[in-house]
């Protein structure tokens, strides 16, 4: 119950981690099933239809239900601490964001258990394949409504982080003293703010096409299928930066901590992050080179895309220069961070190859593309998340993850990863198409696919090893020091692990970049407080975020089955949808009428006790 009503950002971070971790396992299982199907030619382990469901759900799950929530987990757990804030700007909205994500995710996955099966039009849901003419049944309805509900959660989460970072920094924490992870979260949140509404419109239009016979994307009724591609990618390309920028942030923190050096070129890092975020919006049509936009459009988008390599290159060199001459400690967190660099570089290089429009006609829809984006999202993002988890685990849970097991896990995962995806570049160059259920013998694909599958199994084992580590660690007592790595540089390491509900007994006074490190170098034991000890105001817990999201979940169901359920009268689905909206709006009404006065923690009660986890 405590967890259903919590508005504490640290607990919400843990909720995001549990849910995201769960869906990472689900998406991983789907990936393994795909790879088992492809391990030999003419395999019939799963049917062609199931295969389409598997790739669609794997891509969708990994991006929206695993990677984003795990990043939100880190952001929730860390950002307020790094800026010296007691809380986020909108604790209630923060909880609401989690629950809408969660119910959207559940709705999407319910589709597996229905008679018409899961969505099967690919995670990009290209029209008209995703429209009512080709995707009969309810699979795509689950996609549209599940993502719509989850997307609301992401959007309000993004706004929450933006306001928190702009308005709630501790005294002295200017923008140019903000830790890189906070900067990355800031830019990511801005991208979310401008990208997700476009997706919301696309999904709504597709929903109207499917449920209410609208004609947005159906060429037979004057609709335009390319319009879907534009709307999807104007969201979809920024989305990949939404995913990767926080990973960049993690890498910057981890590398500088474990090299015991200030991040090289801090201001150029900030600038590069902003520039990447900005350019991210200018390049969406590089996903559409083969759609037929014409040579002028292709040339412009091709050049714009290659430009992104410049700020990205700056970041890579800065990380390397940070390590240069540092006294490097290869903890598990740092192994992941260092492993990230060459892998991400490779993903970037193949990205530039794909950005050359004429070459893309060759690579398009082959395994070369699959290899490229997995180098970026697994070799970049997932390694970044693992790095961040090892790094901040003590802060989140008060326990240090087992280092030996952590290193074994890293090597298992890392080797498995390269086995799986390196070879796919060559499969692609040989012409193996993406999104195919099976392939013929004698095309020269057999051995490489087998190796790829073995690699995927190794990654699976690695993931299980990580979860084992979590279980083992959880059995240990909570005894992590405030600054368990001893070289902590930023504010989160100045408070107990795990932090008390109110984070900072006294708001710290920030006197420079790497605030804590600066105090250490000046010979101080901790931060200078910026205020006297006093009574602290906290928001009260609430069940309303949960009920609001539950209402949306019910609405989604009702809409989907508006035509099928006729057992009492017609359109029962619409009544169900109405009921759901009533629950949601009713909860909103309650929220607006009863002001939350919260409660106060008085100075006598301020003992440093952390969240229970």
């Amino acid at each position, binding site marked *: 119950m405590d967890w259903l009503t919590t508005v504490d950002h640290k607990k919400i971070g843990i909720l995001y981690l549990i849910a995201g971790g769960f869906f990472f396992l689900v998406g991983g299982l789907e990936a393994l099933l795909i790879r088992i199907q492809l391990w030999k030619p003419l395999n019939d382990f799963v049917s062609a239809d199931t295969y389409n469901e598997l790739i669609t759900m794997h891509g969708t799950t990994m991006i929206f239900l695993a990677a984003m929530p795990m990043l939100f987990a880190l952001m929730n757990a860390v950002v307020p601490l790094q800026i010296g804030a007691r809380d986020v700007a909108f604790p209630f909205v923060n909880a609401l964001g989690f629950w809408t994500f969660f119910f959207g995710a559940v709705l999407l996955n319910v589709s597996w258990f229905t008679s018409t099966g899961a969505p099967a039009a690919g995670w990009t849901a290209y029209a008209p394949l995703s429209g009512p003419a080709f995707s009969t049944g309810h699979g795509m309805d689950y996609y549209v409504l599940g993502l719509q509900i989850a997307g609301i959660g992401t959007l309000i989460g993004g706004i929450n982080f933006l306001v928190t970072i702009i308005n709630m920094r501790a005294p002295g924490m200017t923008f140019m003293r903000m830790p890189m992870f906070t900067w990355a979260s800031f830019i990511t949140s801005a991208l979310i703010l*401008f*990208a997700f*509404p476009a997706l919301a*419109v696309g999904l709504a*239009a597709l929903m109207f096409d499917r449920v*209410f016979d609208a004609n947005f994307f159906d060429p037979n009724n004057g609709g335009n299928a390319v*319009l879907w591609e534009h*709307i999807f990618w104007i969201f979809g390309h920024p989305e990949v930066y939404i995913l990767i920028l926080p990973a960049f942030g993690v890498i910057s923190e981890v590398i500088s901590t474990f090299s015991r050096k200030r991040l090289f070129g801090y201001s150029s890092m900030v600038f590069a992050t902003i520039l990447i975020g900005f350019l991210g919006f200018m390049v969406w049509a590089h996903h559409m080179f083969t759609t037929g936009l014409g040579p002028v459009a292709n040339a412009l988008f091709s050049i714009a895309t290659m430009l992104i390599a410049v700020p990205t290159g700056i970041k890579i060199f800065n990380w390397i220069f940070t390590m240069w001459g540092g006294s490097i400690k290869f903890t598990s967190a740092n192994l992941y961070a260092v492993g990230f660099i060459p892998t991400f570089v490779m993903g970037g290089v193949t990205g530039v190859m794909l950005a050359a429009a004429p070459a893309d006609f060759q690579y398009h829809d082959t395994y070369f593309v699959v290899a490229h984006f997995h180098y970026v999202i697994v070799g970049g993002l997932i390694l970044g998340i693992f790095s961040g988890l090892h790094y901040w685990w003590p802060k989140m849970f008060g326990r240090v993850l087992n280092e030996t097991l952590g290193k074994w896990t890293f090597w298992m995962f890392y080797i498995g990863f390269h086995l799986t995806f390196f070879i796919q570049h060559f499969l692609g160059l040989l012409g193996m198409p993406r999104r195919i259920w099976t392939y013929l013998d004698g095309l020269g694909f057999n051995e490489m696919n087998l190796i790829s599958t073995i690699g995927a199994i190794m990654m699976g084992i690695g993931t299980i090893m990580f979860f084992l580590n979590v279980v083992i660690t959880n059995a240990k007592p909570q005894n992590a020091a405030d600054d368990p790595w001893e070289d902590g540089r930023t504010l989160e390491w100045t408070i107990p692990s795990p932090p008390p509900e109110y984070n900072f007994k006294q708001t710290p006074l920030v006197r420079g970049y790497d605030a804590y490190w600066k105090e250490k170098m000046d010979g101080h034991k901790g931060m200078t407080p910026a205020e006297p000890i006093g009574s602290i105001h906290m928001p009260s817990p609430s069940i309303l975020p949960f009920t609001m999201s539950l209402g949306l979940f019910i609405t989604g169901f009702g809409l989907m089955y508006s035509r099928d359920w006729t057992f009492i009268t017609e359109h029962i689905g619409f009544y169900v949808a109405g009921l759901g909206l009533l629950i949601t709006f009713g909860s909103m009404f309650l929220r*607006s009428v009863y002001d939350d006065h919260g409660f106060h923690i008085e100075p006598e009660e301020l003992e440093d006790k952390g969240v229970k986890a």
Partner: protein
Amino acid sequence: MSTHSHAEGHLPHEPEKATLEGRNKVLGFWLFLGGETVLFGTLFSAFLALRHQVLDGPQPNELFKLSLVAAATAILLTSSLTSVFAIQALHNHNVKALINWLIVTVVLGLGFLGLEIYEFYHYVHEGHGFTTSAFSSSFYTLVGFHGAHVAFGIFWISSIIGQLMKKGLTVVTAPKVYVAGMYWHFIDVVWVFIFTVVYLMGKVV
């Protein structure tokens, strides 16, 4: 920091920005409107891409009754003005005037909504249903999204009026009023674009 420290009667000039909560709300709402801008921008793009696909349905220039739309526009723009008066009353701490101006705003909003419903009803009779063509789908989606925003605004401002009557003007209610005012202006601005892009351009080509 705490919301209780400002006793009633000692309201600062801009009570909506007196507390951190209030400032957060106002900033958060500005950002939210940024997202809404993208939302409507995407809807406009879809409409622009599809507006010539009328199939067998009526052409926009046969369909639209500009006099009706102009009346609706005038009503909505006036309501923006009355919401400005409401915010002025807020800054003068005149709760009575504030409530009255909000009520006028809501009534004007209802008038606009009434005209819009009548308009839609009329179009459907002319053979311009939601499913008629790509033009009609995108038309109803864009204009309807705006109408839904107006309807939501009416509920929202009404609930704020209720709170003002019960609790008066405090540092808790003031940001709510202020933010609702911002929302109302935003809806108005969007309507100006709809009037231009949908109706006027529909009459021209």
